[in-house]
């Protein structure tokens, strides 16, 4: 019999009951909650007179709607200007109070984007199942955890039963062999993967990322890769546990207590795919071929190396692709442009659950240090992923580097990733963004998003247009 994949192992260890129709009940170890997708779930519990199955399996923090300017943040939830946002954040506070769920509220230094906060606190652990009413929950797979996004009715189901009704996915291995070139980061790797397999390439699969280039990434980098598994269509992204994982978890507030630590580490070492495990599909990339990536269109798969020519609709053989490209060209205003460097940028956003961790901020700071943001850039903002990331960055003096270069230093939250708060693009504005979705209107009505790594966003802020960061700074 063939060996087991990491996904098989995680699935098996959480299987409560296999049903005849192919669905199964799987046990959920951690549910992360935020203000947008939880209110009706709590309301459902209340209406049915139900209690959460196990409150200690949940952790909550507001992130999507919270303002990120220090001024609007001063008085906590009461200071939120937008009434709908305020109601959602208040409702989360009240629900967590009523049901006894641990919450890092807006005034807590530990508040931040759920996918930054969970790992940072050691709430996300190897071998767990993690869910959240947010598709980027795949992030937590970086720890060798089975993690995926769910809908509001499922949020309620997990609260009430600690289980999820799920169907087993198929196994895909994406291997990146060899070593990455200077300034080629986790973001470039995952964008290159999406460029290769497409936004539907991973549909129905749990993708395990492996190979030398993935193994040599830090935990921050691994989270960036798994975060965007969903942009390749896969609800689950996974990376095997190794010393990097264990070192990261050690000493975090919610990590196993010292007396359980050795037992935990022992069991985590099993969280790798067996040598003879069989994957339904295997995709291989060579690390040396990956260059800094920039998306040119309105889907993450519309991505190219920074110095390539932008692909033209008329050169596409497939009629559907040709039409899709033509629509993207029009929306992105690419007429008369040949290369990404021909686009004049209006805004720069460094943040989001993809790239707002300390390593991301350090990389961006390295690039802008001692330089100035181009005067054609209307606004460049840096939004740390959590209060603790912000504090650490300030300890290291990164905030000064950013503000001296002309970037704004903000309070933690999702911010311009989805423009639910005041941080938005205007119609027609081009933005170099470290977030994960470049869909039409995602960062504001008519806004034009280009996805890049933090270093590439920083380089773009300085140049006023896209350039290979290697041209600006030696690694």
């Amino acid at each position, binding site marked *: 019999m063939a060996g087991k994949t990491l996904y098989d192992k995680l699935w098996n260890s959480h299987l*409560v*009951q296999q049903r005849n129709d192919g669905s199964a*009940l799987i*046990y959920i*170890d951690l549910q992360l909650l935020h203000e947008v997708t939880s*209110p*009706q779930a709590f*309301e*459902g519990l209340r*209406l*049915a007179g*139900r209690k959460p*199955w196990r409150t*200690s399996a949940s*952790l909550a923090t507001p992130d999507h709607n919270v303002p990120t300017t220090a001024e609007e943040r001063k008085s906590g939830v009461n200071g939120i200007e937008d009434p*709908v946002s305020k*109601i*959602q954040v208040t*409702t989360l506070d009240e629900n967590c109070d009523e049901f006894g769920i*641990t919450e*890092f509220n807006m005034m807590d230094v530990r508040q931040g984007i759920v996918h930054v906060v969970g790992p940072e606190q050691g*709430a996300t*652990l190897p*071998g*767990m199942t993690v869910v959240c009413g947010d598709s980027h929950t795949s992030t937590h797979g970086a720890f060798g955890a089975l993690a995926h996004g769910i809908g509001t*009715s499922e949020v*309620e*189901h997990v609260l*009430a*039963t*600690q*289980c999820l*009704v799920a169907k087993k996915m198929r196994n895909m291995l994406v291997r990146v062999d060899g070593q990455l070139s200077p300034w080629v980061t986790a973001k470039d790797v995952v964008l290159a993967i999406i460029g290769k397999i497409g936004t539907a390439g991973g549909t129905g699969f749990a993708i395990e990322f492996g190979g030398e280039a993935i193994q040599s990434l830090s935990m921050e980098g691994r989270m960036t890769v798994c975060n965007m598994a969903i942009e390749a269509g896969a609800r689950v992204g996974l990376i095997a546990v190794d010393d990097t994982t264990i070192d990261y978890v050690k000493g975090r507030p*919610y*990590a*196993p*207590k010292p007396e*359980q630590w050795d*037992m*935990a580490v022992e*069991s985590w070492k099993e969280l790798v795919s067996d040598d003879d495990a069989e994957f339904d599909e295997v995709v291989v990339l060579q690390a040396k071929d990956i260059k800094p990536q920039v998306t040119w269109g309105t889907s993450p798969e519309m991505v190219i190396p920074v110095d390539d020519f932008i692909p033209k609709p008329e050169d596409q053989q497939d009629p559907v692709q040709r039409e899709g490209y033509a629509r993207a060209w029009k929306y992105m205003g690419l007429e008369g442009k040949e290369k990404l460097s021909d686009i004049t940028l209006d805004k720069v956003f460094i943040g989001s659950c993809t790239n707002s961790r300390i390593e991301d901020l350090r990389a961006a700071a390295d690039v802008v240090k001692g330089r100035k943001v181009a005067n054609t850039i209307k606004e460049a903002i840096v939004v740390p992923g959590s209060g603790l990331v912000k504090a650490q960055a300030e300890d290291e003096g990164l905030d000064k580097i950013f503000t001296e270069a002309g970037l704004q230093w903000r309070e933690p939250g999702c911010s311009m990733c989805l423009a639910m708060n005041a941080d938005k693009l205007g119609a027609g504005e081009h933005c170099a963004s470290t977030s994960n979705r470049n869909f039409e209107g995602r960062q504001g009505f008519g806004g034009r998003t280009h996805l890049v790594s933090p270093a590439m966003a920083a380089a773009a802020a300085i140049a006023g247009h896209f350039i290979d960061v290697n041209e600006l700074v030696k690694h």
Partner: protein
Amino acid sequence: MRPFTVHTGVAAPLDLANVDTDMIIPKQFLKSIKRTGFGKNLFDELRYEDEGQPDQDCEGRPLREDFVLNQTRYQGTSVLLARNNFGCGSSREHAPWALDDYGIRAVIAPSFADIFFNNCFKNGLLPIVLDEEEVDELFKAVESTEGYELTVDLDAQIVKTPEGKEYSFLVDSFRKHCLLNGLDDIGLTLQEADSIKAYEEKRIQQAPWLFAERTL
């Protein structure tokens, strides 16, 4: 979910075909963070003279006298008689939420829109399909007698009039089981509570750190 077994209540005739979900609950009320509280805006445009706003106090709003549920004799209605294709239009689950919040427990019509029909079962509301002639008879009976009550017996699958006349209806056996026992998806999973507990007991031995309290 609240179980549905036998229900007796005042019936009201809504003599209108193709009642869509936007009529049941207009779109301006969908921004709410709740599933309750939609009852006061049920049939908002048919029911009030003015245009309803979210979060508005509906007490003083001018009522349309011609609307059936505004008439004194139909106060406290819990069984709604309706015409063909009830619940068509958008898939909003707010429609059954609004009916339920108002106090409607069953809707009787010759036909229903699909998604609405499904959504009803998820929310403890019973949609009953009877023949067009049967529905017509019920309309006449309800209109001619003030305070006319109907009894709906789900287990027996019959609608009974005060005179003792019975109309039988069909219902999918799985849905019937869920509704009789008040089982929604969560209810069904909770029937496996013992398996879940057994899993937890085994798991806590293997990985006790997963069950640690996570305090602030």
